[in-house]
């Protein structure tokens, strides 16, 4: 956090197609600890929304409770927002998405919010394939409540006071892969070169997109012995594939070597070009991806990048036949059939 607001200095600033500067995608002043990874994730979201030239009012931000969940207040202040109760963001998101499929939904949660109290909610959000970008800011602790181990803490990781965690960690990437997610990525708050294109791709993806972002808690989990510190994460990164996001209106100009890259078209016409760093990696094969992540986890390595991008799976809207028009623009008479209509419905069950 800082004590003064970041001054608005626009001189020489680059503008996007909407005439907005990157600063126009910022939000309120952060109250997180100085150096918190979550603030960097916020900066990456700001950058991605700016680059995609999203009109701020077409974005909805959703979150639960935690330092991570506070961050929705720090980006795109012109967007819609809902800060829900602890671990319940997916339910609120599902409701909002059902009611209005025209907005882009960005959920921000933490490892406590999503994997401890909210594990059931997250699981079903993946299963139902609700259309949102779900950012899980993963620091291995409950930052907001002063650093207790969360469900993503690794076995043997030490707390700031020196206690050891003995519980098996829940890896959101493995979870999402096994529940059928079609966009599963992991990144690191300290690597925006990787994170920004992933956020842009996640926002273009149809259905549920998960980005698990290792985002160190500088106050309670950045010490020696922690497996989620800046230093540890950096030493244990494994990047099998690099993703470039190419907007629909741009041509793919870079020459990617044959067999070294895979180009995946998103539903809005954008492309993600996956450049293989590990030649054996197949980012479109779910079973291989699962195995790869697990193997590397056993070697204490964090696989990052766009780990899996799947072929199309029916999303929430298709399965439930949600209306194209947002519910707030459907005439009231049509939305609510009235007491006559209710009697008709009830009559069917008599």
């Amino acid at each position, binding site marked *: *956090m*800082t*004590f*003064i607001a*970041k*001054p*608005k*200095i626009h*001189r*020489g600033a680059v503008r996007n197609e909407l005439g907005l500067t990157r*600063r126009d995608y910022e939000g309120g002043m952060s109250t997180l*600890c*100085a*150096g*918190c*990874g979550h*603030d*960097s994730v*916020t*900066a990456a979201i700001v950058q991605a929304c700016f680059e995609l030239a999203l009109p701020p009012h077409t974005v909805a931000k959703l979150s639960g409770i935690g330092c991570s969940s506070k961050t929705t207040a720090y980006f795109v202040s012109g967007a819609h927002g809902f800060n829900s109760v602890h671990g319940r963001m997916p339910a609120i998101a599902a409701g909002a998405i059902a009611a209005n499929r025209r907005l882009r939904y960005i959920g921000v949660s933490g490892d406590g919010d999503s994997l401890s109290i909210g594990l059931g909610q997250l699981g079903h959000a993946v299963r139902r394939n609700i259309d949102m970008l779900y950012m899980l800011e993963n620091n291995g602790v409950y930052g907001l409540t002063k650093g207790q181990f969360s469900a993503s803490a690794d076995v043997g990781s030490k707390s700031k006071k020196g206690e050891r965690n003995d519980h098996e960690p829940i890896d959101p990437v493995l979870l999402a892969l096994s529940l059928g997610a079609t966009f599963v990525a992991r990144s690191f*708050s*300290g*690597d*925006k*070169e990787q994170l920004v294109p992933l956020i842009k791709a996640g926002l273009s993806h149809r259905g549920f997109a998960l980005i698990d972002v290792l985002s*160190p808690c*500088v*106050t309670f989990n*950045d010490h020696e012995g922690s497996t989620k510190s*800046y*230093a540890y994460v*950096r030493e244990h*990164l494994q*990047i099998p594939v*690099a993703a470039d996001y190419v907007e629909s209106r741009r041509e793919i100009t870079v020459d990617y070597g044959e067999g070294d890259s895979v180009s995946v078209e998103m539903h809005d016409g954008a492309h993600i070009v996956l450049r293989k*760093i590990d030649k054996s990696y197949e980012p479109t094969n779910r079973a291989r991806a699962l195995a790869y992540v697990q193997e590397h986890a056993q070697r204490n390595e964090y696989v990052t990048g766009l780990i899996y991008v799947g072929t199309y799976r029916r999303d929430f809207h298709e399965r439930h036949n949600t209306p194209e028009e947002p519910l707030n623009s459907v005439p009231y008479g049509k939305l609510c059939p009235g007491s006559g209509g209710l009697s008709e419905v009830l009559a069917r069950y008599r």
Partner: protein
Amino acid sequence: MSHGEPPPAAGAPQPMSPTDTRDPDYFHQVVDCQWACPAHTDVPEYIRLIAQGRYSDAYLVNRESNVFPGILGRVCDRPCEPACRRGRVEDKPVAICRLKRVAADLRDDITDRLPRPPARKNGRRVACIGAGPASLTVANDLAPLGYEVVVFEQYAQAGGLMRTNIPAFRLPAQVLDEEIGYVVDMGVDLRLGTPVESMRGLLEQGFDAVFVGTGAPRGKDLLLPGREAGRIHIGIQWLESLAFGHVDKIGQRVLIIGVGNTAMDCCRSALRLGASEVRVMARKPRQFFKASAWELEDAEEESVHIMVNHAPKAFVSEGGRLAGMLFDRLEYEMDGDRILGQRVAGEVFIPADDVILAIGQDNAFPWIERDIGIEFAPSGMPAVDKVTHQSTRPGVFFGGDAAFGPKNIIWAVAHGHEAAISIHRHCCGEPLAERPPRGVNLQSRKMGMHEWSYKNDYNPVERRLVPHVSLKERFRKLDIEVELGFDAEQAAAEVQRCLNCDIQTVFEARLCIECDACIDICPTDCLTITRNGPEAELSGRLKAPRRNPGQQLYVSGPLKQTGRVMVKDEDLCVHCGLCAERCPTNAWDMQKSWIEIPHAEDDDRCRIPNALRRA
């Protein structure tokens, strides 16, 4: 991180080496105004003192480097303002010059805080020729050290062109008297009405050193057909006659030839003597005018008519009396601000009762014999060392307009300081070319977690306008000062525009954990963590494009976790301290820098041997 980069090929340009911030010039250049000021006035420091209402302290900080804060706060050429960082963030720089005047106007009596004449003289005698700002600065620096300084001035008043040419409506006599008085009262032997007519004669009087501060006294003439007519005046002589009360009227229609600062003073003076039609004739288009923007503005506000693209051709007389001048009307072929060609598009006659020539000044040293070891170039300029100010005759020094041609007051002061150092070293037998070193001192401004002992919040207030005496009122008398200066309230707003460039961002690479917090918070994107590389290539990888290669890049040593480097583009920083507020490890700190610009008194190597001291 493994975004694998191939190692640079052999013979390729090398990555940048870490910046050495112990080099005093590094942080000095960050303080753009101070770097641009020839005398290196500590601008942000005095502005902060004004913000605290400490006007006398602000005055003394100024005086230490520029000697004449009240004078310069009115008429300085202010090279600091175009350099000011604020001008890179929005359109207008901080009103640095006018704030200097605030310090002077609102100060208390500071006389007891000035150096006193020393009880014991050091036995060395120095002659200064001319009582302009250059000589007075030499006297100011040397008298407190015990030198017996004799200043010879041809006129009955001291001040040089500040007195004789800068009109009183810009610079009141009382301001001059007061600040010159401070110098003279340090025990300087000022001999007015005493022209030096022979350098040889002066040298024979046994001075240990002689400083020539006689200015560039000769106004340029314009030898065109018809020049022999009367009522054609040379600008600087005419202004001088005006200052001494020898001239008190002028015709209705006046033409000024030239469009520099002398022209501005001539046209505005002519108006005050009662001229009703004053035209300033310029040969070139407006962007080539030599006059400062603010002087042009003031002249035009007073209804002076500036005519561009007119080249003087002849003076025209009728019946033995000046009738006007003929001009060629020029047309220029331009490419932006570059002249590609010109042609004469016609001839114009402009009637006039008086013509004033303001086309430049020359140096003249008829009183310096050419056989006494002081060499001159064919141009008439003395051969003077740019650093030491010594001529080809040891012990004879030149400074101010006399040394390298006409400049301005603040340059004359800067020369005076350097010449004083040389004279001091000369008298102590130290080599002149070795200069006392500059230094830099740093001290943290951290008070608490997010608290600084300077006001780091960016204030978007726009530049305040200086109030002027009404157009009606100002012509009543010759010496009504036009600018009124800021009052305390206006000053309090203007000082908030200063970005505190002397509060430096100081980086400690070994503490950085590469969390990106500083990168994310910086409002101008001037920070980047990236792999090192050759300067040109690295410049292309900065978070914000590098706009101004004249400004430095700071490059840290390799960072612990990834071996990348922290790069800062000094051009863009607004010294808001947010990087340091956000940094969890104090790798960034905000530290006040003091740039030590040594004067003669700071030269530790110099001691006059006791044996040579006289009581």
